[in-house]
Each structure stands twice: as structure tokens, then as C-alpha cells.
């Protein structure tokens, strides 16, 4: 199977700190690929480089058979690479529906349309409502994003990411700050996306990771020390040594 995303030789240093160390990684179509690793392993830097906010020092990133290493953030998004943020990043002054409408709008050609009111346009609103329903926010469309509960805001993030019909989702700790109940709901939501999307998942919640992921890559000091199925990772001596430690 040709990978949908292929990272090779990626490297990034900040001053004396190596955040990404000649990292190579493939994400296959339809898989949930989790990236785990202790704090400071370079997970967030990796997401930054994949989404285009951080320029790597070396290496290439190929997405759907095209080199995107130097593409700006918005071009990657338009090609079908959507992301969510570690710190909830919805537009707080907008309603839930407007948030998703903007995401739909981003993929509906240019927005240099200055006259017709956007709020009532069915071409934006219908897909947005559908997407909200899909993530379980059907009844909350007209609530300002700032008034949504934390877990709901995270669901909204997913809806915004899905609205552009992406081929690959980069999810940066989607369960951060969630209680067990909210976590369970998010796990269910992500499991449901599996059939239609490839997902690169950075997550600290190990229960969720081992339940969801098809493959797991363990990152330590910017380097991939192991990649494999959850079972293989569980059994991997190097991983237990470096990361899972006494837990396993």
C-alpha cells in the first residue's frame, strides 16, 4: 500500500536542542497511527512541521505523492491535511455552527465575496450542521463556542477538521484535559472516523492510544525508537526501557 504521508530524514534543532532527529515515518491510508513519547520527545514539533508552522532543517514530507515540505500552512490544509490543536483553538466569539461553516468555506473556493450574507447560505450551513451532528453536537449549533463545555469544544475542533473532507487528520492530544466520560466519547468518535480517514494521533491517554491505534510509533528525543502494532509495542524491550518503564 502506498503511504498517504511519508516523512523521511526529518530534522529540526532549536539552538542546542534536537527536537526532531532524522525521523522517517509512513502513515498508511485508513490507519490510525499514534505517536507517543515522554514530554519533550518532539511530538508537538513534529505536528508543527507536518502542518507547516515550523520549517524543518532537513528532510522531506510527502503527502499524497507530492512534496509538501515547503508549502505554507493553508496550502497543506487545502490539499487535505487537517489538524486539531493541543490547546483548544476554536473561534470563541463565533457560534459552533459558524466555526464549522468557516471550515467549509475554506474549501469552497475563494472567499472574496463581499455582499451576500454568509450566515444563511445553505451551501455553508447544511454541511456544517451535518458535521456537527456527526461529532455529536447536533443541538448546540447556535451556541457561542466560548459557552461550550471543554469536551464539546474539543468535539467542535474535530468537526472543523472534518469539514474540509481531509484525507489525513493530525490530532494533537484530542483528549487533553478531558474527564473519563468525555474521553470515552472522544474515543468512540475517533473509532468511527477510522473507516473514512487516516489519522495521525498524538495522545497521552494510553488507554485510548492502545484501543484506537493500528500502529504506534514511540518517539524519544526526536528519534523513533520503535514502530509497530500495539501488541508489538507493548512487548518491545527498548520501549519498556525508555518509556513505559515500570508501568508495563
Amino acid at each position: 500500500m502506498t503511504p498517504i504521508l511519508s516523512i523521511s530524514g526529518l530534522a529540526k534543532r532549536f539552538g542546542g536542542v534536537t527536537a526532531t532527529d532524522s525521523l522517517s515515518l509512513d502513515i498508511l491510508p485508513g490507519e490510525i497511527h499514534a505517536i507517543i513519547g515522554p514530554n519533550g520527545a518532539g511530538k508537538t514539533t513534529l505536528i508543527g512541521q507536518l502542518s507547516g508552522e515550523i520549517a524543518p532543517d532537513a528532510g522531506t514530507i510527502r503527502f499524497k505523492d507530492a512534496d509538501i515540505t515547503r508549502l505554507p500552512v493553508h496550502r497543506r490544509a487545502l490539499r487535505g491535511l487537517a489538524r486539531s490543536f493541543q490547546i483548544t483553538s476554536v473561534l470563541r466569539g463565533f457560534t459552533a455552527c459558524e466555526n464549522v461553516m468557516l471550515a467549509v468555506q475554506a474549501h469552497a473556493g475563494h472567499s472574496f465575496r463581499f455582499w451576500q450574507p454568509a450566515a444563511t447560505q445553505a451551501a455553508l450551513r447544511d454541511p456544517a450542521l451535518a458535521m456537527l451532528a456527526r461529532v455529536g453536537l447536533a443541538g448546540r449549533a447556535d451556541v457561542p463556542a466560548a459557552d461550550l463545555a471543554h469536551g464539546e469544544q474539543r468535539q467542535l475542533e474535530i468537526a472543523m477538521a472534518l469539514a474540509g473532507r481531509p484525507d489525513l487528520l493530525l490530532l494533537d492530544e484530542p483528549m487533553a484535559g478531558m474527564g473519563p466520560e468525555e474521553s470515552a466519547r472522544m474515543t468512540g468518535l475517533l473509532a468511527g472516523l477510522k473507516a473514512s480517514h487516516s489519522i495521525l494521533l498524538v495522545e497521552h491517554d494510553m488507554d485510548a492510544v492502545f484501543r484506537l491505534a493500528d500502529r504506534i510509533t514511540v518517539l524519544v528525543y526526536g528519534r523513533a525508537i520503535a514502530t509497530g502494532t500495539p501488541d508489538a509495542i507493548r512487548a518491545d524491550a527498548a520501549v519498556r526501557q525508555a518509556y513505559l518503564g515500570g508501568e508495563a
Partner: protein
Amino acid sequence: MLDILRRIVLWGGLALLCLLPMLAEALGEGFYITMMNRVLILALAAMSLNLILGYGGMVSFGHAAYLGIGAYTVGILAYHSDAWFGTESAFIALPAAMLVAAILALAIGAISLRTSGVYFIMITLAFAQMVYFFFVSQQEYGGMDGMQMWSRSDAGPIDLSDNASFYYVVLGLLLVLLYAKYRLVRSRFGLVLRGIRENERRMKALGFPTYRYKLVAFVISGAVAGLAGAMMANLSEFVSPSLLHWTRSGEMMVMVILGGMGTIAGPILGALAFLVLEDVLSEITQHWMIVLGPLLILIVLVARRGLYGLLDPKGEPK
């Protein structure tokens, strides 16, 4: 309750604006027409700034540049009225002022918008200073002293030299542009612009080339400020670098904040309040700035949402 109050204030205010010349005539206070002409023109300028400041989150500290270049465009075209390119026609001079201001905004915006935050504030200010010094050094157009125009622009059937007619032209322009702005901020473009103000990083990640949208808003804003400048030149029949002085940019910002940022009617309230305040305070003391300064600090510290905010405490930007 407040909703009704707001309606009363807005519609009542509008009716008052429409009837003002007749009222002033009846009271024998022609002075009010001139004063209100200034208010409306500054409201137009403040409104243009509000588009990028209030809706786009771009803190431009150099808006006087577009006001000034609009005024100079009218002045210079009139000065050369004997030459092939000179004209006193409002139908050419006003669009020309908007065009020149738009081109200037395009050049300044293209560079300034590469930066953000404090850099953006300082750079827009510095560019406006550059334009200021440019006109200070133009001896042919009066240098520091500026230049007198022979008359107001010629608007065909409308006699701009009559203060009341002039007033209705300005009011008409203001209302048309207010309505245009009302539509614009609700359009797809406006949604993107407001989204960028809220969270530009997010907007990029959604797939918006934010730089382009900001630049277009910046240029529209510059063009409208240029129109305000053109009307300002016509009102006083005089253009000088003082229109471009950096304190003008500061005053425009004050008007926007005073009225209520990111609201449709705010800039009008702000311009009105600013000029009335100036008028009232300068009656009391010639050193009225010594009151205005601390007052401004106080407004920033406690009444952040402006006058419009008093009418609309819910805080939804309209």
C-alpha cells in the same frame, strides 16, 4: 429594554442627522452645519479604520496617511487644473483620491502585513511619517504650510460650495458606505476577516491564506479613508501636512475606541463624541488636552467597549 433604547438612539440619531441643516437654519446657527460636516467626515475616516481595527484586528497606527493622500490628491488635481491631468471635477477627483489612497495602502499593507503585533503598529506609524515628510518637502505644494484651494470640487448639479448641500453629500456617502460595510462584515469575506481577528493561526490551519484577506481589507480601508480625506480637503478648501500628522492617526483610533470597536454605528458616535468633547473642553480651558489625556487613559482602563457598548451590554460585536 436596552434594545428599544438602542433603536431609539440609532433611528432618532439618523432622523436628526437628516434634518440637521434645516434645524440649524431655523435656529440661525449655521456653525453647526460646518461642525457636523467635520463630524461626518471624521466618522467616515473612523469607519474605515474600524474595518481593519475593529473587524480585522489590525492595529494600524498610520491611518492619517490615507486621509492625507486623499486630500492632497484633490488639492493637487485642482492646483493643476490648467494642465491636461488637472481637474476640479468631483466626479474625477474623488475616485482618484480613493484610487491613490488604495495604491498607497496596497504598498504599505503589503510590507506591514508581513509582520504582526507591535511590529505592525510601529511600522504603519513609520510609513505614515514617511508620507508626512514627503509632503512636507514638496515646496511646490506649499511644503509645511500646505496649500489653499480656489474652491470646492465641481459636482455638476450639486453645489458643494453650499454647506447644506455639502452636508447631504457627505451624509449620503457615509450612509451608503455604512450599509456597504454592514453587508461586508456579514459576507463570506467579513466572516473570514473576523475569524482572522479571533485566531489567525486557526484560520491558516483551516486553509485560508490570511495575508491576502488582510491585505484586501487594508486596501478597502485605505480607499475609504482617502475618500474621507478628499471630503476634508473640500470642506476646508485647504490641504496641509497637518492632515498627515501622526496625532491624526491617534485621534482616529481614539474615535473608534470611544464609539465602540467592531460596531457599525460606533465610529459615528466616536467622532461625534470626540469633537463635542473637544468643543466643550476647549470652552472651559485652552489646555483641554490636559483633561483629554487622562480621560483617555480612564476610558481604556474602565470603559473598554465604548459608547456603543453602553447601549449594547451583551457585547456581541455587531
